[in-house]
Structures are given as structure tokens and as C-alpha cells.
């Protein structure tokens, strides 16, 4: 069934969108990821303008992270103090990101910019994930357990503005969380992702947070940042397509529920390798689209009505 998206200004098939939302939701349920970094490129492949895909995806993530954070609140798995400091950095990052986005959009190069950001991020993260899981698999075959868990005492502990984070059982400077939050805010606003794939490793390896509060706290920050990013894109760039967001939210919720209930008979590193392959394929497709000679060198873009 064909519907016309009011802000994206393109006709799309409703069922294709629902299935896409459900498929990405399903993957996020299985892999425990947000899915924004898959959904935004897929929307672009469907012919939705990159600027609309990014802003609308932020809107969808606001919904899915809110429903996620509610579940973690029940389990008291959110470090609010840490979350709030991350949010402060994130709001700044988002504001800066949306402004950068607006400037590049005014030069008519936003599609290229978003694609390049995705190629860079998906390429590096996919490759890292792939190599890391490969070496984990090889190590487990040799059955040598080299996994060590030690409290690291690194440069982070030398920074000023130290404060105590009770839920995380940490006494560290507030600067690293603000900086991490800032980077996540930038990512959310220019790529339409929650940024969990950066935020979670950063919380564990840089901040040294205990794993039990990491997911809840990251969802808490992501919810605020994507909600704010949605608002900023709506006011600065007018690129949030609420109808598209609604369809993706509905599809995504159904898919995620299914995905979370499917028992995957795979080891953690095998799941990661699969995910890395998906990420690299999307990256490859984006790169090919930029490099292949287009069918038509010329195109027309419509300006505002007069």
C-alpha cells in the first residue's frame, strides 16, 4: 500500500517500511543493539532524503530508548548522576551537531556528508568488531583463557572536578563523561543513531562503570539526547517526518519483541561476527553508491514554493 510521506516528500510502500522497521527491530532484539546505524542507511537506500532519514531516526530512537529505560528503571540499573552528566555533554554536542548539519545542508551537500560519516563509522567499527571476534574465536579454540579483569588506574583518574558516583561505585572526574556525552550528541545529530555502540564501550573501558548499570544508563542518556535532537532538527532543519517515525516505531517495537524472545543458538562472538558482516555490507553499499558512475549525471532539486 503506497503512502505519501509529508516531510520526506516521497511516496513509499507502507508494508515495506513496516517490515524494514520490524527487521531492524528484530536484529536489535537479537544483537542487543539500537539499530539506528542500520535504519538510517536503509531509509536512504529507499530514497528518503538523508536529512529526513537522520532526523526521523532520532525521533524513533527516542521512543525505543524510552521504552527500554523504563524496563531498566524497574531493575534500578540506572546511574542517574552519571546519566545526567552525560546528558549535559550530549545536549551541547547535539546543539553543535544540528548547527553543523544545517550549514552543510544549506550548501546542498548533506547527503554526501551523512554518507561519508556512515562509511567512516561503519567501516571502522565493523572492521574492529570483526577482527576482535575472530581473535576471540581463535583464542577460545586454543582454550587459553587470557581474559583479565582488573581495575585500571589510568589517566582518567588524574583529571580535576572529581565526584562520587554511588550507583557505579566510582570516584572520577566529571570531565570524561561530559566529553563522551558531547561526542554521542554529535553522532546522534549528524547520523541519527543512539550511539550505544560507542557509548557502552566508553562507559566500560574509559569510565570503568560496572556492566550492570551500563545499559540502563546509556539508554537514559540516549533517550534525552535523541528527544532533544528531534526537537532541534524539527526547529532548525524541518526534517522530522512524524508519519515515517510512527511507522518505524510500530514496526520496530514488534520486531524487537520478537527478536528478544528468539533463542539464538550462537556464541557471543559468533553473533558479533554476524553483526560485523551486516555493518560492513551496509558500509560497502554506501561506498559503492558514492563511487559508481551515476546513470544520470544531472538532476534537479526543487526549492521552496513561492
Amino acid at each position, binding site marked *: 500500500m503506497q503512502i505519501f510521506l509529508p*516531510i520526506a516528500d516521497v511516496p513509499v510502500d507502507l508494508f515495506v517500511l513496516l517490515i524494514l522497521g520490524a527487521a531492524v527491530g528484530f536484529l536489535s532484539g537479537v544483537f542487543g543493539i539500537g539499530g539506528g546505524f542500520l535504519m538510517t542507511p536503509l531509509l536512504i537506500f529507499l530514497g528518503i532524503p538523508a536529512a529526513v532519514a537522520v532526523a526521523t531516526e532520532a525521533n524513533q530512537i*527516542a*521512543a525505543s530508548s*524510552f521504552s527500554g529505560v523504563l524496563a531498566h528503571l524497574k531493575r534500578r540499573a540506572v546511574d542517574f548522576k552519571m546519566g545526567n552528566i552525560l546528558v549535559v555533554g550530549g545536549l551541547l554536542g547535539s546543539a553543535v551537531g544540528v548547527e553543523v548539519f544545517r550549514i552543510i545542508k544549506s550548501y*546542498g*551537500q548533506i547527503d554526501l556528508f551523512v554518507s561519508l560519516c556512515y562509511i567512516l563509522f561503519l567501516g571502522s567499527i565493523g572492521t574492529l568488531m570483526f577482527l576482535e571476534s575472530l581473535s576471540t574465536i581463535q583464542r577460545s579454540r586454543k582454550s587459553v583463557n587470557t581474559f583479565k579483569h582488573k581495575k585500571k588506574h589510568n589517566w582518567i583518574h588524574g583529571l580535576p572536578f572529581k565526584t562520587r558516583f554511588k550507583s557505579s561505585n566510582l570516584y572520577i572526574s566529571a570531565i570524561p563523561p561530559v566529553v563522551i556525552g558531547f561526542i554521542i550528541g554529535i553522532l546522534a545529530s549528524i547520523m541519527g543513531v543512539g550511539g550505544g555502540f560507542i557509548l557502552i564501550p566508553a562507559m566500560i573501558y574509559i569510565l570503568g562503570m560496572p556492566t550492570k548499570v551500563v545499559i540502563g544508563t546509556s539508554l537514559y542518556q540516549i533517550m534525552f539526547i535523541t528527544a532533544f535532537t*528531534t526537537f532541534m532538527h524539527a526547529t532548525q532543519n524541518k526534517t522530522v517526518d512524524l508519519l515515517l517515525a510512527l511507522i518505524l*516505531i510500530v514496526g520496530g517495537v514488534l520486531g524487537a519483541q520478537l527478536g528478544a524472545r528468539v533463542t539464538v543458538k550462537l556464541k557471543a562472538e559468533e553473533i558479533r561476527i554476524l553483526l560485523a558482516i551486516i555493518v560492513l555490507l551496509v558500509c560497502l553499499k554506501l561506498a559503492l553508491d558514492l*563511487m559508481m558512475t*551515476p546513470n544520470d549525471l544531472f538532476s534537479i532539486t526543487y526549492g521552496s514554493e513561492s
Partner: protein
Amino acid sequence: MRVFIFSMLLIFSTASFTLSSVISDIDKSNIELSTRFDGTNLLVFGALSPEIDNTSLLVEVIGPSTSVDITKKVQIWGIWVNKKIAHFQDIPSFYKISISNPEHPILKEIEYQKLKSIFYDFLETNSTPQDGNGVEQYYHELTRLKKKLGKLSIFEEKINIIDKKLFSYKVNLPKKIYPGKYKIKMTLIDQQGIELSKSEQSVKVSKVGVQEFLSSNSKNNPVFYGLFSVIIALFLGFSAAQLFRWMYR
């Protein structure tokens, strides 16, 4: 119904016509762009006097104006990048022209004059052509791309002439059209292309329902629209959490 209107037109027309004249009507005055809009047809019909013999009927459909940029993809470091090469200010987003007599002696001349007056004259001059092909290249790309998108058609569609006196013409509007006023101009011309008589109708194309609500608020009340989008998303996220907690209790 159509036949009835035609015959009524015929009766009235024969009584009131003086020299050369054309009268016309259309089958709808409003087109609603809903979320499900998938293109539509518009029927234009009317009567001519005196009988069409040495005269030809031109029908033009002119959509609301927008500005248009032509971009060309250029390769930089192996990557194809869009480069803006020409800008047309306020030209019709949709234009169709048809003629009752495709063998009109100065058809090419009419075509050029029409395209010049609605498109070519609106090229902003700061975009100087680099390829040596001159502005003609921009004109060519503009018409080629507009035709490709179904937004321009020049003497491709037929006007039905019945008994040399009545005419009907079906306008096909694609699914992606701009809202606004669509003018339908009927002009009777002689063999030299001189205008003898004309008649004009218009159709109002407007967004309705969800389509109207979202696009007008996004444009005119962005603060409200932004807050509304966030609240709807959070509400849906909350409902989903509640629903599944209840389902898997």
C-alpha cells in the same frame, strides 16, 4: 453526464458566439492530496466557435511556481559529488501543453516561445556555463529532467475534437505534485500562431488531513511540531513498555 454537458454547451455556444471563441469547463475544482494520493485525472472539455478549420486549439496546464536547481555530479577523489550548475527562479513545477492539430505549420516556433516565456527567461545569470555549450545546455537539461519526472509534456497528448466543435482533454497528474493553483489555459490560434480567443480554468490542489497537519505545522510552527513529535514518540515508547509488560506478566 459528459454527453449532457457537451450538448448543453453546444446549444448555448451556437447562440452566443460572435467571431472566434472558446468556452470550457473542468470536471473538478479541487484536488485533495491525502496520504493515499496516487495521482489523478482531470477532464477538461468545452466548445469552439466557429468550427475548427483553419484554427488550432492549444491547452496548457500550469502548476504552481517553485525555484529549481540543476545539479551535475562531478568526480572528486573518486567520489561523485553534486555540484549546482544552474538556478531557475519561480518556474511552474508542472507544465503540459497539447495542440489539436499536431501538423500546425509553426509548431516548433510555438514550442520554443512557450518554453522561453515560462522556463528559459527565469535562468539566473550568475551561473555561467563552463562546458562551452552555453545556456542552451541548461535549457536542454531542465526540459529533459522535467520530462523524465513526468512534470513536463510538450505536444505528447491528444486533444479529442468531436464534430469540429467540441473538445475534451484528459490531464494526468502524477502522484508527486506541488499543492497550489493549477491553471488550465485554452487558446485558439490561427495558422500564423496568432491568438484568436482564450479561456481559463483553475483547480486548487491542497494537502488534507494528516498530510496537511504535519507539513503545515512542520513549516509554520516548528517549535510545536518538534515538541509534538517528541511527545508522541515518548508516549508510544511508554505504551509499548506497558503493553509488553502486561502481555508477558
